[in-house]
C-alpha cells in the first residue's frame, strides 16, 4: 500500500431528524448526526439499534418516514455519479453464488461506466486477484468482506459506508482493514464504519456516533469521550493512600472493589507515594476502559433484541495488547 495521499474533496454526511417506522415499530427515531471528511467515524450501537436501517436510508434503499439523510448535500438517488461519490459494503452475502467475484465487480463496473482494468486493480488492492475468479458460492466470510470492500472502492468514491466490515475477518485481516481505512481517510475520504463491538473499532476511529433504540445516545470525537486518563491502584488501606496522595497534590477516589482511581497517568509517582506511606501495592495499572464502560452504560438494558452480541471479554489492560487480542473478540 502506498502512502502517497491524493487528497480528495471532502463530502459530509448529514443526517437530520431521520425517522423510519415499520408498522408500529420505530427503527430509527429522530436521529441527527454529521460525519466529517478525512476522519473515520464509528457508527456504534447494539444489534438492532437501527444502524443498518440508517445506512440504507443514506443510500436511498429505504425511504425515510421523515427527515433527511444526505451525502455531500444531496439525496443518494439524486447523485449524478453514485459510484464515484459513495462506496458502500452493506452485507457480506450480496453475491450471486454462480457468478465469480470478478464478474460481480464487472457487472457493477459496467453500471458505473468503469473499465474492467479498474476491477482488477481493486482485486489486487484487496488481496484477492486469484480467488475472485472462482464462483462466489465457495467464498469464506473474509473473502466476501474483501470482495465487498473491492466493490465499494470501484468508483474511487469520496465517501465510504461500511456495515460491520470486520465481521468474519481473522486477526490479520482486521489489522489489514484498520491500516487500509487509515490510508483511505488520509486521502480525505469520509468513512463511516458501523459496528456492534466497540473494542473492534476503538483503535481505528476518530469520531463516534453511538445509537440505541434508533436514537442518538452520544456523538463526538473519540478523545472527548474517553475522559481524563487515570490510574487504578489497589492497596491494603485505601483511605490512608488517598490521604498520602492528597499530600502529593494528586486527587484519588474510591472505585469498584476497593480500587482507587487516581487522577494521574504517572504510575511511578503513585508507587513512590505508597512506598513512603509504607503501603503495599497489590495492583497498579492504567485506566483505559472508560469508553467501553461509557458504551455499555449508554446502551445497556436498552437492547430491543436481547441475547445478541452484547457480551464481550473484559477490556485489555494494556493498549498494546489489543492488537494481539482482537481475534478473540469476534
Amino acid at each position, binding site marked *: 500500500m502506498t502512502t502517497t495521499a491524493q487528497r480528495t474533496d471532502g463530502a459530509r454526511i448529514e443526517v437530520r431528524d431521520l425517522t423510519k417506522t415499520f408498522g408500529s415499530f420505530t427503527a430509527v427515531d429522530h436521529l441527527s448526526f454529521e460525519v466529517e471528511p478525512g476522519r473515520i467515524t464509528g457508527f456504534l450501537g447494539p444489534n438492532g439499534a437501527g444502524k443498518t436501517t440508517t445506512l440504507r436510508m443514506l443510500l436511498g434503499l429505504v425511504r425515510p418516514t421523515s427527515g433527511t439523510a444526505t451525502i455531500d448535500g444531496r439525496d443518494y438517488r439524486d447523485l449524478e455519479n453514485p459510484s464515484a461519490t459513495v462506496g458502500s459494503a452493506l452485507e457480506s452475502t450480496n453475491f450471486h453464488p454462480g457468478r*465469480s467475484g470478478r464478474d460481480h465487480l464487472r457487472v457493477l463496473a*459496467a453500471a458505473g461506466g468503469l473499465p474492467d482494468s479498474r476491477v482488477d486493480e481493486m482485486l489486487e488492492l484487496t488481496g484477492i486477484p486469484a480467488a475472485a475468479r472462482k464462483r462466489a458460492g465457495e467464498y469464506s466470510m473474509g473473502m466476501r468482506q474483501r470482495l465487498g470492500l473491492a466493490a465499494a472502492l470501484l468508483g474511487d468514491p469520496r465517501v465510504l459506508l461500511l456495515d460491520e466490515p470486520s465481521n468474519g475477518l481473522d486477526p490479520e485481516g482486521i489489522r489489514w482493514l484498520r491500516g487500509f481505512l487509515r490510508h483511505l481517510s488520509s486521502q480525505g475520504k469520509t468513512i463511516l464504519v458501523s459496528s456492534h463491538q466497540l473494542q473492534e473499532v476503538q483503535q481505528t476511529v476518530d469520531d463516534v456516533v453511538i445509537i440505541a433504540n434508533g436514537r442518538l445516545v452520544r456523538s463526538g470525537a473519540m478523545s472527548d469521550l474517553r475522559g481524563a486518563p487515570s490510574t487504578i491502584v489497589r492497596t491494603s488501606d485505601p483511605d490512608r493512600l488517598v490521604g498520602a496522595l492528597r499530600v502529593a497534590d494528586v486527587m484519588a477516589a474510591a472505585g469498584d472493589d476497593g480500587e482507587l482511581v487516581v487522577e494521574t497517568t504517572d504510575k511511578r509517582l503513585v508507587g513512590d507515594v505508597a512506598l513512603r506511606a509504607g503501603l503495599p501495592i497489590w495492583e497498579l495499572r492504567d485506566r483505559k476502559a472508560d469508553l467501553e464502560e461509557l458504551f455499555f452504560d449508554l446502551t445497556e438494558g436498552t437492547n430491543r433484541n436481547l441475547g445478541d452480541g452484547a457480551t464481550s471479554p473484559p477490556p485489555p489492560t494494556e493498549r498494546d495488547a489489543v492488537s494481539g487480542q482482537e481475534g478473540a473478540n469476534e
Partner: protein
Amino acid sequence: MGAAIRSEFRKIFTTRLWWGMAIGIFVAGALFAGFFGWVLTSDQPGGPGGGPALEGDATQVVNSVYTAGLGVGYLLLLTMGILQIGSEYRHKTITATFLATPKRVRAMLAKVVALLGIGGVYGLISLLGSVAVGAIVLTLRDVDPFPSTEVLRTLALSLLALGLWALIGLGVGILIPNQVAAILVGVGVAWIVEPLLGLGLSYVDAAKDVVPYFPSNATNAMVNGVTQGGSQVDYLPWWAGALVLAAYAAALSAFGTWRTVRQDIS
C-alpha cells in the same frame, strides 16, 4: 442508460444459466420443427381418435413448422424474465443494482431493454435450429420451404414474441418475489392453466370472444400457423396478436417497475 443496460447484459452472461437456456431453446426449435415438419406434411385421415383435421395453406404450414418450438421457447424466456429480477431478490444483489443505478426507473428500463434483446438473441438461436431442420424435412417431403415472404414476417415476429414473454416474466418475478414460486406459478399458468381455461371458455358463448386475447392465443396469432379444423377460437390478425401480447408485457413490466420504485430494499 447505456451503462445500466450493459450491466444487465453482463448479469445474464456471467452465470451458466444462459448457455443452458441457449442449448435448450436450440434443441426445442430443431426437434419440434423436425416433428411438425413430418406430421403436417403427412396425409391426415383424421386419426383413429377422430381428432380434428388441421387446416392451413402452404405458408401457414411452413410458419407452423418453423415456430413449432415457440411454445417451449416462450416458457424458457418467461423463466429468464422471472430470474432476471427473482435472482436479484433471492441473492440480494438488488441492493448492489440500485446502489449502482439509484434511479430505479432507469435500472428497471435497463432490464426491459436487456430482456427484449435476449429474447431476440434466443429467438435467433431457436430459428437457427428450427429453420435448418424444418427446411430439410420440408424439402425431403417435397414441400417448398419458403412459399412466401410472409414466412419472414413470422420469423421476425417470433423473436419479438420471445422478448415480450421475457417482460411478462419480469412482471411475474416482481409480483411474486419468491423466485421458485414465481417460476412454478408463471410456467404453470402459461403452460397449463391458461390454455385449458382458453379451451374451456371457447365453448362458452358469453366468454368465447375474450379467448383470442389470451397470451398464448395472441402469440399463436402473431406467427399465423395452421389451425385445428372446427376450433372455436378465431385467432386475431397477426398485428393485433402482436399488440395484445405487447400490452400484456407493457402492463406487467410497468406495474413491476412501479412496485420496485416504491419498495424499501432491506
